[in-house]
Every structure is written in structure tokens, then in C-alpha cells.
């Protein structure tokens, strides 16, 4: 058993809000991701059991969306928006700056387990570009100084 009892309870309660139980697959995946920071076949299986749907239905849905990765990532997942409004204001430099600073490749985990840097498509923060999302939070109007400060903060919080 990977998912906690409270996660399973939350999933079964969520399912009651929908006319059809399959609709609760995405909410269930969010619950699992928030608890573990990644998804796995074992979690798909447990979600399927709680909801009374097939394993493949959960796996299919999960594989389609970007927010349910099976790979583990650093404690802080840094997603740099690479789309046009951010790119026009230097987001590609932001990505390379972060990779150099953290001494890590795109999608890898830093040696201390703290950081993973990936690129993301438009995150809806176009008027405050360039931006990055770190776990659930948006950090906007980024500059070198701001990025340095944020990384220090994350490191000190561990």
C-alpha cells in the first residue's frame, strides 16, 4: 500500500461529487501526486481499486497530462516557461542560468536532492514574464538577483 488511508478517503469522497465515477480519476491523480510527488503503477492500481475502475483507465488518463509524472524529481520542481511571451524576455537565459547555477542537466535531480529544472509550455503568466513555477507557486518578473535570492531561500528551508 502506497497511498495513505486519508488519501484514499479523500479520493472516494471526491468521487461522490460526480455523476460518473470515472470523472474522479484526475482528482485522484492530483491527490496521489500531492502526497508523493510522482505517480507509479502501484498508485494507479490503488486508485483504480478505490474508484472501482480499470487500471488501464487510470494509466491512460495519467499518461496524457503533464502534471502526473512517473519520474521522481527534486524537492523543488522548477518549471521555467519557455513559451513566446517569456522567451521574448529571455526565458532561455533563465533556464541556462539555473542549470549552470545548480550544476544539473535539464530534468535531472541535483546531488542534494533539492532541485529539478524543466521547461514548461505557457503557464498563463505572460504579462509578468519571465516566470517560473516552483512546485505549486508562481514566481514572476524574474531577474538574476531574484532567482539567486529564491534559490538561497529554498536551500535554507531544505
Amino acid at each position, binding site marked *: 500500500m502506497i497511498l495513505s488511508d486519508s488519501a484514499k478517503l479523500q479520493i472516494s469522497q471526491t468521487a461522490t461529487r460526480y455523476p460518473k465515477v470515472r470523472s474522479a480519476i484526475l482528482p485522484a491523480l492530483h491527490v496521489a501526486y500531492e502526497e508523493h510527488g510522482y505517480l507509479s503503477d502501484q498508485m494507479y492500481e490503488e486508485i483504480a481499486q478505490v474508484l472501482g475502475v480499470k487500471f488501464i483507465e487510470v494509466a491512460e488518463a495519467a499518461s496524457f497530462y503533464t502534471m502526473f509524472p512517473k519520474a521522481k524529481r527534486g524537492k523543488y520542481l522548477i518549471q521555467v516557461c519557455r513559451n513566446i511571451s517569456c522567451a521574448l524576455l529571455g526565458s532561455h537565459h533563465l533556464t541556462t542560468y539555473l542549470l549552470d547555477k545548480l550544476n544539473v542537466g535539464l530534468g535531472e535531480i541535483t546531488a542534494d536532492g533539492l532541485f529539478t529544472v524543466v521547461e514548461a509550455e505557457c503557464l498563463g503568466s*505572460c504579462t509578468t514574464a519571465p516566470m517560473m513555477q516552483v512546485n505549486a507557486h508562481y514566481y514572476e518578473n524574474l531577474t*538574476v538577483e531574484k532567482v539567486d535570492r529564491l534559490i538561497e531561500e529554498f536551500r535554507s528551508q531544505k
Partner: protein
Amino acid sequence: METKLLSQFVGDPQQHSIERAIEHGAYQAWQKVLKEIAPADLIQIVKDSGLRGRGGAGFPTGMKWGFVPKETLKPKYLCCNADESEPGTCKDRVLLEGDPHAVVEGMMIASYAIDCHTAFFYIRGEYDVGQVRMSKAIDDAYAKGFLGKNILGSGYDLDIVVHRGGGAYICGEETALLSSLEGDKGLARLKPPFPAVEGLYNCPTIINNVETLANLPHIVMKGAQWFAGLGTEKSKGTRIFSVSGHVKNPGNYELELGYSLRDLVYGLAGGILDDKPLKAIIPGGSSTPLLLPDKIDTKLDFESVAAAGSMLGSGAVIVIHEETCIVWVAEILAHFYMHESCGKCTPCRQGTGWMYEILRRIEAGHGKMEDIDTLLDIADNIEGNTICPLGDAAAVPVISTVKLFRDEYVYHIEHGKCKVRSQFRLRVK
């Protein structure tokens, strides 16, 4: 000058609380609707107002509602489309975070008009603050008796369910949104049947954009004629424009439709960054054709932008200055459509990848002269040959940049490098 109708209170840091929202008039329209207005009359009011969808397509809202069959035993559903993800667009976020009760009230009014008793609020998964604020707003509306059973003694029941997406641009397309809401991969569906007849769980379903819905309380309180007095002959009301890219003051600006693009870019947005010459403007989100500087006096309404050769789309004005390689712009957008293609239709699934690969090759300095026509050929074979508009959208930046900047493509291929190289680096401070 901005015309702040929807964004009037978004600057108030407490507007997301129900107490402050009610002080500012929230839920008065909802009470008025429940007491005084029959659903059929409500649909007529919205038709008369001339309100058109703010998601991108600009379809008349009242007419859309009118397609819901009256004589059916099936439940009817409303979905609020908050899957805002068209590159350049962040105007719905302003409302979700800044005035969530206006969106909730809009959902209530639309639900009532189509006789829906369970409405869904579909928000893109990444919008964390928006999701939290909307969920709280909905909970507080239940606590005040504005949602639930027998609302304010009217005999009308309504529940709203918040549903987070999983990160997929395609789910902003209405039929893909429905697939996603049903727990499936976000694959678009062939129309007809249109969702208004056969949508969520095969039941009649209306999908309306956040900003569209937020207009409804104003229309109910001030009347169709008042609303129809804002804007132009065919484009009524205001829109929130997201201005991004190479401008001094990027931001969301709410304007009466028909406002001048020049006044937006050079006035409100402060002009071009570093006072560089303007190269091009994408006026309605990444899926709309570029406009050259000679179109700067275009009026921002559906008809005028169409006459200028583009689309008003989602109202995302992306400004590009002269020191920007246009092949690089096309490559970035092509990567996006390749990444976001749902894979259902072959022309889009394959074509978006081919276009990206060719653009990447040209940008990397290894382009061949025949690549230009190959790009146009692929775009032409995607356009019109897919179930949903993502295919057409992917073709647009390629066709548009080649048409307007063919010389830059030729230079890029001949010299193996950009004609102009963006000097913009991440600011230090």
C-alpha cells in the same frame, strides 16, 4: 483609458472574500434572476446584449444557450472553461484570483438560463491560487445560501463542482474539456453532435469562458441595451487584453471593444521596450496571424482585426520588436503545438512535429531552401483537416511568418544564421 467593468474591483486585495464582494454588489444579479426573470427571458436578454464568447471564437453566448433542447429528460450541464492556456493569455486569471465571486455568479446565472443543476468549474491544473480562491468562493456561496437546494426559497437547486485539469492546452477546446472531465485523455471529439445537444455524459452541455460568464451579472443588473451600448456595432462590451512581450508596461488592460491597437501598445503599455522599432504584433494569442506595424491603427474588435488579416482570439497582444529573429519565434510556437497536439488526428500529430523539426533545423543553421515550401505544404495539409482548431492554430504561425517575413527565412537558410539576433538577456535587477 481603460473601461473597468469586470476588473473594477480586482485591485482590491480583499475582493476575493465574500463579504467584500457583497459590499461591492456581488450576488444581487443572482437574487434578481431568481426572483424576477424566467430562463427564456434571461436567454433573450443575453441575446439582445450581443455578448460574444471571450474564449477565442467569439460565438454569440445567448444563441449558444438557445441550442440546448428544451424537451429533454436528460440533465443539462454547464462547464466554466478556466483552462486558460493560449500562449500570451492570462486575463481569466485576473478574474479567478481577483474577483472569483463574479465568476461564480456568472456560472449561477448561466446555469439557471439553461436549466442546469450541476455545473462544473474546469480550471487548468497549474492555476493554484485561482483554484483555491474559486473553491473558497464556491464554499462561501453555499454558506450564504446562494448555492445548494431550494436557493433563497426559489425552488431552484444548483451545485458547482471544481475540477482541476492535469496540464494540457488541448483541454481548453470544448470537446476535449468534456473528455477530460469524464476522466479520459483530453481528446477532441467530432462535431456534430455539438455539446449543447450531446456533451458531458452525452447530455446537453454549455461550455462558457470565465470572462464571458463574468459579464452576466452586469448584463442582468444594467440591462441588455446598456451593454449593447458599449463597444462597436457587432462587438459589444469590453475585453481584458493581456499585453506581453516587448513593451514597457506589460499587463492586463480592460478596454471597450473597438479601442485602438496603437493606443493600447504605445499608450497604456508604454510603447516598445528600449524604444526599439516595432517588428510585429500577434493580436489574439499565439494561434492568430501576425500583424505588421502598418496595421497598428487597427481597432480591437472582432471585425476590424479580421479585416486586418488576423483574429481577436483570446485578446492576447504579443508585441515583438525589431531585434527578434522571426524564425526563432516560429520555432518556439511550433514546439508548443507539437507538445500540445493530442494525437488524435494524423495531420496534426505528425505535421506539428515535422514543422518543428524543420524550423529547428533552419534556426540551427542547417536549413535548405526547399524547406520554406515544405513548411507551407505541411501547414496546408494540416489546416482544415483536423477535428479541432488546434491543427489550424499550429498552421497559423508558420504560414503567417513565411508570408510576412519570407526574406528572413531566405537569409537564415543562405547564411546559416539569424538575420537579426535577439539581444535580450535575463535582467540582472
